[in-house]
């Protein structure tokens, strides 16, 4: 069934943005601010800033003190794998795995969010720049293909998005982790200060305050509030203190008068025009009515998430693109990456018993990459590197109290805080391997009858070798930091668990070996831009969202310039 009875005018916009998460929100903001009538298509429901039903609920106001029962968890067996995302306080943010199945040729955790704002409401908010150490790595090492971008190209766009998003942090002058335009950093607590000083002195390694997308100073940012350190970010922030599409980009886009958001709109494919060289629009299934609509625009931004955008392109089959739109290279769906993590060390301290802190800081400390950054730090058994996220604090009532088992003595012990502890967890770069891929599966359909994905992704020897070093170095840092009872851990984890899925439509110089050009355009369909994590040519070891913001803003400005020149 096709419903285009309204006539083309009413379904024609200057630009269409598919998805409303971090990338889609930025595309919407930039395009509408440049005067383009923009339609944002979101597959899930509407969520306006402030529609955060659990934001103010305490444990006793939530079912089972905010725990999912085994019965409730039955429909969320994939989401459950994270161990922290499924709880009554967050349940409304996650689609049922049973509605949206996928096939795991090898184990893969795909953690999705289908609503306006997408995972921008749920992200970890750590915000780091990639540098030339990252952008040059593939070319220098002869791995995969070269990034068609260098740090100097993207640096001004990092400036631009950081100033709007509000990133708190400290400039440190590190080559491997470029400085930025930061709001004041959060404070260290005293164990972190002490470990930082000792580690610098003994190992020469830096520990810095985690850079995160939180407003830490009043003023600007379109009236968003400052962080109240409740650390309940994943419920949605009533103050708008952390960056989300809902709190930041979409309200600004809406304010231009150029924005239309259409929720419950599943984009099934991109449609070509008569020439076959340009896209004329997208086909949409209304998830509520199941009706099929078409919308038209001069430019299309695919920001449907790494796998979401690639799924749409794989499904956009035509005589010209029999293997999916922009897949002349055969690389569409390939080179899946994620960050491997859940490995590190922790320890205790007997010091600072008279010290404490106030508030639940929504970030921790960060140990920037120190392996393979120069000739001196070169490792023989792996390339690239990793960073650690971590932090210190005092133990609370959940600790084991050996000295008192019951009665007033137990109560007295519980009323006091426990020892200081400190721990770090590595986040490692994953290389882009052609064999790590996703593909369309027409045999398994989702609740809307759409073909699903098959995941065929695994960690390989470079990641496995790197992990050994991540574990040993974590212990080394904790010990140098002056901690006692240092213990290491390796929690393993499938690809996908980092929720940093990247690749599948990589950028490159050559249409024969890449899907997108240096401006995030599909080589063979220049008015389609893909600016979510699928464009990543390599993964770096830093959290990727800030990079998606910068590339999206850059691509949007370029698209508008090209449109003005009549090139699109």
């Amino acid at each position, binding site marked *: 069934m096709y419903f285009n009875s309204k006539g083309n005018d009413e379904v024609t916009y200057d630009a269409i943005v598919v998805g409303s998460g971090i990338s889609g929100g930025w595309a919407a903001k930039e395009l509408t601010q440049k005067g383009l009538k923009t339609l944002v298509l979101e597959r899930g429901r509407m969520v306006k800033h402030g529609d955060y039903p659990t934001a103010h609920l305490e444990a006793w106001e939530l079912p*089972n*003190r905010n725990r999912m029962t085994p019965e409730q968890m039955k429909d969320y067996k994939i989401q459950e794998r994270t161990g922290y995302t499924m709880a009554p306080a967050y349940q409304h943010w996650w689609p049922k795995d049973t509605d949206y199945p996928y096939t795991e040729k090898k184990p893969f955790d795909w953690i999705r969010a289908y609503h306006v704002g997408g995972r921008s409401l749920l992200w970890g908010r750590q915000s780091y720049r990639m540098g030339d150490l990252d952008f040059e790595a593939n070319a220098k090492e002869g791995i995969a293909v070269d990034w068609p971008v260098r740090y100097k190209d993207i640096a001004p766009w990092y400036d631009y998005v950081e100033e709007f998003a509000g990133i708190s942090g400290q400039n440190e002058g590190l080559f491997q982790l470029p400085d930025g335009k930061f709001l004041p950093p959060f404070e260290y607590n005293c164990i972190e200060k002490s470990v930082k000083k000792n580690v610098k002195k003994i190992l020469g390694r830096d520990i810095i305050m985690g850079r995160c997308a939180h407003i830490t100073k009043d003023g600007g940012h379109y009236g968003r509030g400052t962080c109240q350190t409740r650390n309940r970010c994943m419920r949605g922030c009533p103050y708008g203190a952390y960056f989300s599409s809902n709190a930041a980009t979409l309200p600004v886009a809406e304010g231009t008068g150029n924005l239309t958001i259409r929720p419950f709109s599943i984009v099934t494919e991109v449609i070509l025009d008569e020439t076959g060289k340009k896209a004329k629009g997208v086909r949409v299934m209304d998830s509520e009515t199941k009706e099929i609509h078409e919308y038209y625009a001069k430019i299309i931004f695919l920001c449907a998430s790494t796998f979401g955008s690639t799924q749409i392109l794989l499904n956009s089959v035509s005589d010209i693109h029999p293997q999916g739109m922009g897949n002349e290279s055969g690389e569409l769906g390939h080179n899946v990456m994620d960050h491997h993590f859940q490995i590190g060390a922790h320890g205790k301290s007997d010091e600072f018993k*008279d010290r404490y802190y106030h*508030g639940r800081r929504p970030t921790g400390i960060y140990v920037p990459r120190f392996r393979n950054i120069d000739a001196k730090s070169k490792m023989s058994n792996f390339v690239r590197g990793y960073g650690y996220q971590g932090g210190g604090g005092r133990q609370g009532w959940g600790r084991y109290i050996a000295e008192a088992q019951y009665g007033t003595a137990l109560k007295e012990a*519980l*009323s*006091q805080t426990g020892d200081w502890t400190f721990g770090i967890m590595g986040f490692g770069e994953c290389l882009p391997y052609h064999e790590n891929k996703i593909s369309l599966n027409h045999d398994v359909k989702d609740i809307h009858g759409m073909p699903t994905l098959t995941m065929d992704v695994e960690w390989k020897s470079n990641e496995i070798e790197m992990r050994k070093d991540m574990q040993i170095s974590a212990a080394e840092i904790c010990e140098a930091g002056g901690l006692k009872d240092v213990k290491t851990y390796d929690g393993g984890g499938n690809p996908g668990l980092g929720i940093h899925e990247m690749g599948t439509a990589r950028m490159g110089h050559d249409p024969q070996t890449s899907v997108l050009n240096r401006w995030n355009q599909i080589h063979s369909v220049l008015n389609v831009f893909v600016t979510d994590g699928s464009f990543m040519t390599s993964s770096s070891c830093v959290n990727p969202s800030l990079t998606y913001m910068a590339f999206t803003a850059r691509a949007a400005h370029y698209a508008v310039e090209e449109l003005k020149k009549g090139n699109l």
Partner: protein
Amino acid sequence: MDRREVLKTSGLLLGYALSAGTTAALLGGCTANTDKDWNPKTLSNEEVDLLAEICEAILPKTDTPGAKDALCHRYIDEMITNFYEKEAQNHFRETLKEFNKESTRKFSKAFIALTPGEKEVILEHLSNQMKDYVDETGKKPHIFKTIKEATISGYFTSEVGAKGGLCEFIPIPGPYQGCINYNSVGKGYVL
């Protein structure tokens, strides 16, 4: 705040019904045992009465609320009902009998009838037993361990326990301060 209003709005906004147990806990507030409307779902009334006494002996009322005030026994019945499989429920109920067995052996009385001092003797015995206990299957934890942990978590995740002053409850801290004098707070945080 009107408790029924809280219940209504949170239930509606969440888009799903609160469990009957939580409903009872919310409506019941801190008027624990006198609430005649509440009935355990898995444990018997006798077992819950015993459990309430054990919880209270673990976290007794002092100048701050005790486990009974915080309805920890109800929380434990809900926990067993919603999270335990049949086998684990049976293990809990079976080993719960240890408290009465031990009190009968030592004092010829049921646990519930003991003086506070006598209860401590039983708890001392069972907590020592717990220290030597090895749960080989990983499915049969020692009863004292189960009750102690659940009493503590039930206490601090209840409104009465969280706001009762044993620890510091600060829902909206404001700006983070990395290094302050412990004595300026003087106790641990609930959250």
